[in-house]
């Protein structure tokens, strides 16, 4: 397919053109080249690629991307879209770190934030490992494409035993003029043994222009550390958002991840976790809310490598108009991982006859003493509940909104940090208010 190949090359070029890593060490150049080579071999995934069966990136191939312009940096932070969190802020604009608006100094004891180019220059071990790890790009075309042309990012290090009370907040802003832009943020997070920290990511857009954010994040959580990791995907409606998060957990780690997805034209939130220790509590949860012409994909992979760990996964979605949701969840239990306890559930609520959900739960188990279950439900609003509300004078429209809100807010219970749950709750309310306006306009 020469046409596809030409598109792949154009994408590769768009990303490589953006790379700002002059004078980086040789190993970095080699990693970039390996990324480019892997992407060229795999190509941009289509529905024919099993892992991308329900999410095609064909639409991307037809866009021609310009390199992000330098003055994009001046954009204001769209506070209405960003999660309302009093945090230690790191601002990326079109994938590049805006140092002037990022908290790089005077940080709490035990926390270090370093611009990625510097961390590469200093040969930081975690960064070097992340960028050279073949496992991070093998069979993963978009992660490979990211590696081929990293735009920027940060290294976040939480020292052993440090307890960082204030959330760290990465605000990734995409913005484009008439020509679409593509960028590839790469962030590396290292949480030392017995440390505690919270990371919130807000992915947002400014303006009407189309952009493609293709990010990769590495998270390493050392023994007995607690790491809360929350993500708000609230990109511009014309944007493409593809994000890969690689998580590795040591002994007795608590890792809880929650992703709220409501923005972008097409978004894929992929989390691959390796539970490389015993007695880990690993949770990946989320909420997705799709309206007209939106496609929201959550793909997760959980590998239990050692015995006695627990994984929990609950996603809840609401699909309105012709919105489309995709959930793919795989749990792999390796032979040594006896007494694994895994639970996975995707619930989707369809609000329109044109909405669609594709769920693909998968278990692959090699140990013989494990407890794993998975499930998926699809439903509509409950008629008895609707009638009860209407019989008390509440209009059909308000009653439906109340029930949707209750259904979604219930999922927020999974977030272990209350102020983040609250901040994400306001995004749910805002989404419903927008939905109400659409309905009013239509009636």
């Amino acid at each position, binding site marked *: 397919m020469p046409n596809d190949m030409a598109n792949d090359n154009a994408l590769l070029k768009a990303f490589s053109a953006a790379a700002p890593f002059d004078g980086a060490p040789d190993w970095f150049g080699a990693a970039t080249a390996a990324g480019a080579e892997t992407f060229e071999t795999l190509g941009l995934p289509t529905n024919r690629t099993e892992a991308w069966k329900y999410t095609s990136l064909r639409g991307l191939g037809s866009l021609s991307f310009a390199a992000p312009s330098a003055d994009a940096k001046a954009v204001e932070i769209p506070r209405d879209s960003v999660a309302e969190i009093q945090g230690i802020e790191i601002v990326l604009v079109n994938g590049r770190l805006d140092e002037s608006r990022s908290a790089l100094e005077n940080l709490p004891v035990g926390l270090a934030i370093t611009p990625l180019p510097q961390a590469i220059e200093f040969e930081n071990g975690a960064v070097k490992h992340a960028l050279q790890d073949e496992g991070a790009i093998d069979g993963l075309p978009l992660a490979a494409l990211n590696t081929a042309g990293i735009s920027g990012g940060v290294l976040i290090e939480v020292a052993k035993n440090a307890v960082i009370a204030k959330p760290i907040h990465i605000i990734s802003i995409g913005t484009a003029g008439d020509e679409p832009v593509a960028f590839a943020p790469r962030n590396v997070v290292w949480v030392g043994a017995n440390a505690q920290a919270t990371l919130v990511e807000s992915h947002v857009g400014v303006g009407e222009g189309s952009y493609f954010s293709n990010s990769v994040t590495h998270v390493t959580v050392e023994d007995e550390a607690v790491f809360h990791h929350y993500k708000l995907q609230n990109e511009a409606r014309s944007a493409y958002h593809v994000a890969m998060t690689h998580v590795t957990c040591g002994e007795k780690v608590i890792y809880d991840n929650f992703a709220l997805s409501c923005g972008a034209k097409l978004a894929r939130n992929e989390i691959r976790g390796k539970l490389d220790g015993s007695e880990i509590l690993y949770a990946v949860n989320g909420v997705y809310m799709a309206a007209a012409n939106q496609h929201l994909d959550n793909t997760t992979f959980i590998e239990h490598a050692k015995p006695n760990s627990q994984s929990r996964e609950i996603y809840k979605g609401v699909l309105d108009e012709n919105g489309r949701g995709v959930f793919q969840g795989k749990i792999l239990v390796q032979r040594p991982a006896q007494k694994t306890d895994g639970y996975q559930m995707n619930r989707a609520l369809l609000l329109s006859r044109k909405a669609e959900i594709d769920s693909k739960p998968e278990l692959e188990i090699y140990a013989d003493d494990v407890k794993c279950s998975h499930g998926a439900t699809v439903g509509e609003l409950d*008629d*008895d*509940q609707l*009638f*009860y*509300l*209407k*019989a*008390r*004078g*509440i*209009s*059909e429209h*308000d*009653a439906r909104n*109340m*029930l949707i*809100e*209750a*259904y979604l*807010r*219930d999922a927020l219970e999974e977030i272990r940090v209350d102020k983040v749950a609250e901040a994400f709750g306001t995004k749910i309310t805002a989404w419903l208010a927008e939905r109400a306006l659409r309905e009013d306009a239509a009636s």
Partner: protein
Amino acid sequence: MALLEIKNLHASLEEEGKEILKGIDLVIQPGEVHAIMGPNGSGKSTLSYVLAGRDGYEVTEGEVTFGDKDLLELEANERANEGVFLAFQYPVEIPGVPGMTFLREALNSKRKYHGEEELDAMQFLKLVREKAKSLEMGDDMLKRAVNVGFSGGEKKRNEILQMAVLEPTLCVLDETDSGLDIDALKIVADGVNALRNENRGMLLITHYQRLLDYIQPDFVHVMAAGKIQRSGGKELALELEEKGYADFTGKAA
């Protein structure tokens, strides 16, 4: 003017097309309490749903006027806002919706409907406390999600509290006594009695006579096979208690 006037009401289940109500006639004047008694399957609950405007029933004949309004022309929420209140046989659990939010939304929907100003959270709280106090109830259950994890008695008390707050002019109580022990039944009956007044009409739907030991009706109607078979005073209830519904259904109920 009558509060509620039902004339020759016929209604069927929309899906099956099966006729359940086969010509109901009933007039309720302001201040009156009517009891409809009947065996299971007589159409009692269907009548309450048709009055409240539940989807799934088709009125094939007859009319229902509420004050000067054609009730059947109104949506369920409009009927509620006009002053019709259905106390459910099985109040529905709504996880994630706090009772307080739900009831404030309900009251404000009614106020908005009548062009009145909506109450803010503080004003509403004050009102609810007063109403709960007048019924000798706490307002604790409103802090929980609507009906979630409530005992049978709590659910029914919650219905009565909602009724007190929304101040309907017509209360339809569908099998309010089902699933209640005597203590809970008394509490609920006290609540209903406290809400009786000269402007408000009540329609009690019940299978058993025992509710009527606590709430004295002005009129009793026996319903069977989709029709009101006989009407009378409260002594009719006692007669039914003795003889059962056999005279009306042809078999012992």
